[in-house]
């Protein structure tokens, strides 16, 4: 009996999974797509709380889509030092008044990680996607979609999407102990309504003219950059989605940037030449659910970060190899 019981339980679980594979998963996927579209298509404004590591911060957000489909967003921190992030289609501008600094991050629209079918397959391989009931956030009813990781190389996610629009009212990142390590949750939200572009402009736009400006740059070319770096021991389920040459705002020198993704989680690898006068020791840090690992390697500084567990980040960083003269050998 003792030996049979687990088999019976396993059998029941298998039946449950098979069932989920039909209805629940497909509905859950449909909801996931709806969420992704909603954040791009709707006008909304509200207040949300960002919680991580026992801390919480309140911010305001305004998202405005003009008649031509252009997207404008304004994020304003309400606690602590004032900070604003303005998004103007694919350009992000961070205003840091206490540093009198503006950081401009240029994104390449062709590289934007939208949820397309080929990436969706990555999600199925690596997560169990399912609907997990209803909840209420910021006065709205919402449906919960869960992404449960199939191994310990990635975190779980939960999105609670507003029943009508699909806007994500609450997003949680969950670790292997089923603890929430980071969450974004609206406390007040207005969906729809008429906006004008003034609402998505920074109040520092005028006075920041004399501030320091740090700007990143991407080498936008049709040909893929290949600096010869390979991740020798890629964590299961992760694929390389991008490899570009770029610069980082406020830092000197060219940086190779490789992005690996499992469909929902992304890990970035930054490789840059180590300045002679800089001492680099290996270091592990975090910012919310993002783990960051830095190590010196073969005369370079390797920085790997992403919203994935430290094991995943470190495995990628520690298995990075430079293929010997990949270009000149031929």
């Amino acid at each position, binding site marked *: 009996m003792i*030996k049979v019981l687990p088999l019976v339980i396993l059998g029941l679980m298998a039946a449950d999974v098979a069932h989920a594979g039909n209805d629940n998963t497909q509905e859950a996927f449909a909801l*996931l797509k709806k*969420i*992704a579209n909603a*954040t791009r298509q709707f006008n909304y404004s509200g207040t949300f709380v*960002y919680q991580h*590591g026992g801390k919480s911060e309140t*911010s305001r*957000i305004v*998202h405005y889509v003009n008649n031509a489909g252009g997207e404008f*967003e304004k*994020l304003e921190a309400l606690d*602590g030092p004032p*900070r604003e*992030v303005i*998004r103007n289609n694919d350009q*992000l501008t*961070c205003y840091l008044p*206490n*540093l009198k600094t503006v*950081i401009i*991050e240029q994104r390449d629209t062709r*590289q*934007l*990680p939208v*949820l397309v079918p080929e*990436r969706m397959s990555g999600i199925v391989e690596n997560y169990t996607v399912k609907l997990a009931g209803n909840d209420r956030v910021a006065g709205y009813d919402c449906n919960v979609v869960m992404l449960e990781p199939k191994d*310990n190389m990635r975190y779980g*996610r939960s*999105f609670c999407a507003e029943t009508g629009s699909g806007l*994500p009212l609450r997003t949680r990142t969950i670790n292997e102990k089923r603890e929430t390590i980071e969450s*974004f949750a609206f406390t007040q939200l207005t969906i729809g309504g008429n906006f004008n572009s003034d609402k998505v402009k920074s109040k520092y736009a005028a006075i920041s003219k004399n501030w320091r400006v*740090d700007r*990143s740059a991407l080498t936008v070319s049709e040909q893929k950059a290949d600096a010869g770096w390979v991740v020798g021991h890629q964590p299961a389920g992760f694929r390389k*989605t*991008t490899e570009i040459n770029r610069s*980082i*705002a406020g*830092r000197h020198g060219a940086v190779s*940037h490789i*992005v690996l*993704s499992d469909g*929902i*989680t*992304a890990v*970035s690898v930054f490789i840059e030449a180590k300045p002679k006068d800089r001492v680099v*020791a*290996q*270091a*592990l*840090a*975090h*910012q919310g659910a993002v783990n*960051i690992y830095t190590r010196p390697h073969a005369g370079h500084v390797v*920085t790997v*970060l992403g*919203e994935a567990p*430290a*094991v995943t980040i*470190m495995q990628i960083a520690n298995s990075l190899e430079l293929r010997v003269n990949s270009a000149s050998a031929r």
Partner: protein
Amino acid sequence: MEKLSALIDGELDDQEMERQLALLKQNNDAQDSWEMFNLIGDTLRGDSRISSDFSRCIAERLALEPTMLAPQRRAAKNVVRNAMSIAASLAAVSVVAWVAFSNNPLTAPGSPASVHLAEPAPAQLASINSQGQMNEYLLAHQGFSPSTAIQGVVPYIRSVSVSPTPQNR
């Protein structure tokens, strides 16, 4: 050392805490001491987290040394490493005991325990709050992340979350 101990006990004021954390970040010896202090503290408190730390420790050592039953003796560099290896040995014994005595019907007889133990584990490296030091890299990363894109610009609060002060840039 005293400062580290006070840091663990939460007896430092904010300014001193920041300073000690910054020191920790730069200094490998201090990191070793920090881990040792925490290990001692956890042990004294009988903290349950210690078991997971232990198994992580063994997993790591096993991955490095497949000949688990006859481990090579290394010249211990310092007290910390000595203590760590004792801890690992104790933990190894407990895992062997666990594998031997737990009669888990789902584990086929003779299935290698190393399947679980060989999982990659982070080195004994304490994770510190990035204190806004990596904001520009975070900013560069987020545009490529599907989980960020799905939420619009909301997650960008991370990349300005702790604004670095001018002197630590």
